[in-house]
């Protein structure tokens, strides 16, 4: 007789273990980690000024002087996140602590970081920065908005085609280095993906939760609302929003979030319809708990697992939405974006393959990574499904 194995492993720990077992998901997480690294350290990876230099015996770090408020805030938040992760606290407290820390960091950064208002990239190629004892340049010595006009760049040059300075991935139409722009574009991509799906998730949970909990007339009205958002092709709705509301990055996050919640609402509604008649929910209702507590403290944690799957596919979708908008020429204006770079691939009847392959490739890899993670989550959460799919758990 086999002894029954009693596992003390918690549900979330088991899901993590099963999720991480696949090969694909490791690749996916690896890619996302690379993106995060690039996004956080972008100013040190691709910039026109030296990281460190020694002139007349004085050692200085020009990169730090030119660090923008945003750069500094992202760096601070990253290290706060690392520190909070090391602390052994409950999940909710960690998130709260991180939010508090990064808000404080934002305040401090706004007060103390004063970068020069105008950066003239030509200066870094003048004698003040070249005639030095020694200097360490970033791996890619071009800033994303350094259009190299002073170097006589005509723009849209293939990799290694330019004499005198090396562009690993060529230059774009204004003569800026493509690789540098791609590194800085990680930020837009990641932040859009996370914040837009965060907004969509919040709306979806509230609407779907109310629909599932109350059912009846609320469900009926909510379903119509969901249908309205589902029946207009999302991309078209997005186009309308962006065209009429302007194109700042933050606006775009809100818009992609506001147009993308219907799927989450459906998921949550389905889960809540299943849960609302369960004993523990009835007990919570009978003991007179407030509605928010019943919905979000008692029901939500039990219905959250399938949402994880939807979220990781949703992040991929949000990143794709931003890239598509930028591709159609409705994206953020001057900031580097993968989609906008892809748009330059077939400008003026010539085909600039490097503008298609590199930015397009990174959009593909990012979307693929999130899809792989989502797939792994789904297989881990629903073993029945993975059995059906022929994958042994």
């Amino acid at each position, binding site marked *: 007789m086999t002894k029954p194995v009693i596992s003390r492993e918690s549900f979330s720990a088991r899901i993590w273990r099963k999720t991480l077992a696949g090969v694909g998901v490791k690749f996916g997480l690896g890619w996302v980690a690379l993106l995060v690294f690039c996004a956080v350290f972008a100013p040190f990876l691709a910039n026109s000024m030296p990281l460190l230099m020694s002139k007349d015996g004085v050692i200085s770090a020009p990169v730090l002087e030119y660090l923008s408020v945003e750069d500094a805030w992202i760096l601070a938040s990253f290290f706060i996140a690392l520190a909070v992760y090391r602390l052994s606290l409950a999940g909710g407290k960690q998130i709260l602590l991180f939010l508090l820390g990064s808000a404080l960091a934002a305040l401090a950064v706004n007060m103390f970081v004063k970068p020069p208002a105008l950066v003239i990239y030509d200066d870094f190629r003048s004698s003040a920065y070249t005639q030095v004892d020694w200097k360490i340049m970033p791996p890619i010595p071009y800033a994303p908005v350094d259009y190299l006009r002073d170097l006589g760049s005509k723009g849209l040059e293939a990799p290694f085609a330019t004499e005198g300075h090396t562009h690993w991935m060529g230059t774009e139409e204004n003569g800026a280095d493509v690789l540098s722009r791609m590194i800085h574009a990680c930020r837009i991509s990641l932040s859009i993906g996370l914040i837009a799906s965060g907004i969509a998730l919040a709306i979806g949970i509230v609407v779907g939760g109310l629909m599932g909990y109350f059912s009846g007339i609320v469900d009926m009205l909510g379903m119509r609302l969901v249908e309205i958002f589902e*029946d207009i*092709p*999302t991309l078209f709705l997005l*186009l309308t929003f962006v065209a009429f509301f302007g194109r700042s990055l933050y606006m775009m996050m809100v818009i992609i979030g506001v147009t993308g919640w219907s799927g989450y609402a459906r998921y949550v509604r389905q889960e809540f319809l299943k849960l609302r008649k369960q004993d523990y929910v009835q007990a919570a209702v009978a003991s007179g708990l407030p509605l928010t507590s019943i919905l979000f403290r008692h029901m939500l944690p039990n219905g959250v697992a399938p949402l994880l799957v939807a979220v990781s596919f949703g992040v991929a979708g949000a990143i794709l939405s931003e890239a598509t908008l930028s591709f159609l020429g409705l994206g953020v204006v001057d900031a580097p974006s993968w989609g906008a770079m892809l748009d330059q691939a*077939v400008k003026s009847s*010539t085909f600039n393959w490097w503008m298609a392959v590199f930015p*397009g490739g990174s959009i*593909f890899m990012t979307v693929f990574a999130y*899809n792989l993670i989502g797939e792994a989550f789904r297989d881990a959460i629903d073993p029945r499904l993975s059995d059906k799919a022929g994958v042994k758990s």
Partner: protein
Amino acid sequence: MLTYLLRRLLLMIPTLLGITVLVFSVMAMSPGGITAQTLIGGMDMKPQEKQALLDYYNKRYGLDQPAPVQYLRWLNNVSPIGFVTDAQGQRGEFSFSKGMDLGTSFQYGRPVSDILAERIPITLLLNLVTLPLTYIIAIMVGMKAATQRGSAFDVGAGMSMLALWSIPTMLAGVLLLGFFANIQHFQWFPTAGISSLEAQDMPFLPHWEEGGFVRGFLLDRIWHLILPVICLSYGGFAALTKLTRTSILENLHADYARTARAKGLAENDVLWKHVFRNSLLPLITVSAGLLPSLLAGSLIVENIFSINGMGQLAVEAVKGRDRELVLSITWISGFLTLIGYLIADFCYTLADPRVSYD
């Protein structure tokens, strides 16, 4: 069934109304809103002319009135029953047979219905060619993967379908256009449009002439459609293949399949006559969701391949802030989507007699 259909059709009305309210309020809330002022560029117009045009727009569309009034006015014009309005925007008596008037596009100065009548067939053609192709490939690959479960083909197909699914349409479009339609590389396909100019005068079918081979209208059209259709279809069949595979696997080991085999039926008959028919249901459900994504997909594909369809029109309309056009396009794409869902639900009953909506 009839009552069900009727109820569904009636439920469509609030949804369609909701769609227009949503889009209208987006436009009205935007900074600047919709006023005659924003519609008229007027750099090269005399002040009087400009004022006259402003007055005309204000009268015709009531653009100087508050947004809810504007919306009701638009709704009245669009709905088949309502008050009759004349060219000056004056309201006449109530009528049940006044017909629908989608208004005049601000940007093109032509009736919206005319523009749509030109553009919709092109997008529909694109999508109607894509849809069967998607299903055929998906069913073929999915079936092979399911029957050879665990084989190299199965694993390879699973991985490559997920990869295909993740390729953004614009990347595929740009790469195909760049490599297969550009002078720099292989110039095998045309770069733009859905037919060449000379094809308009050709006979329909391809044939041999004294001067040599003549493509004919049909072949020319197909030649133009190959790249856009590839772009539109790969994402769909990648998703469908996975679905087909799981759905067939589920049925392949069902009791009825075993009974059929025990009876001595040929494996092919078991597969196609029994298992396949029962695996159809999820495929049908997805077909409804495929339509809106196809419409959205053609937006990008038409943009890349310069095809003058509805997607291209949508981008132009939105960029030009063309209120009448934007409203009509959203309205129609919403309508098409709803009809798609309805047809899918109807096909459901055909595929599975157990399903009934009463």
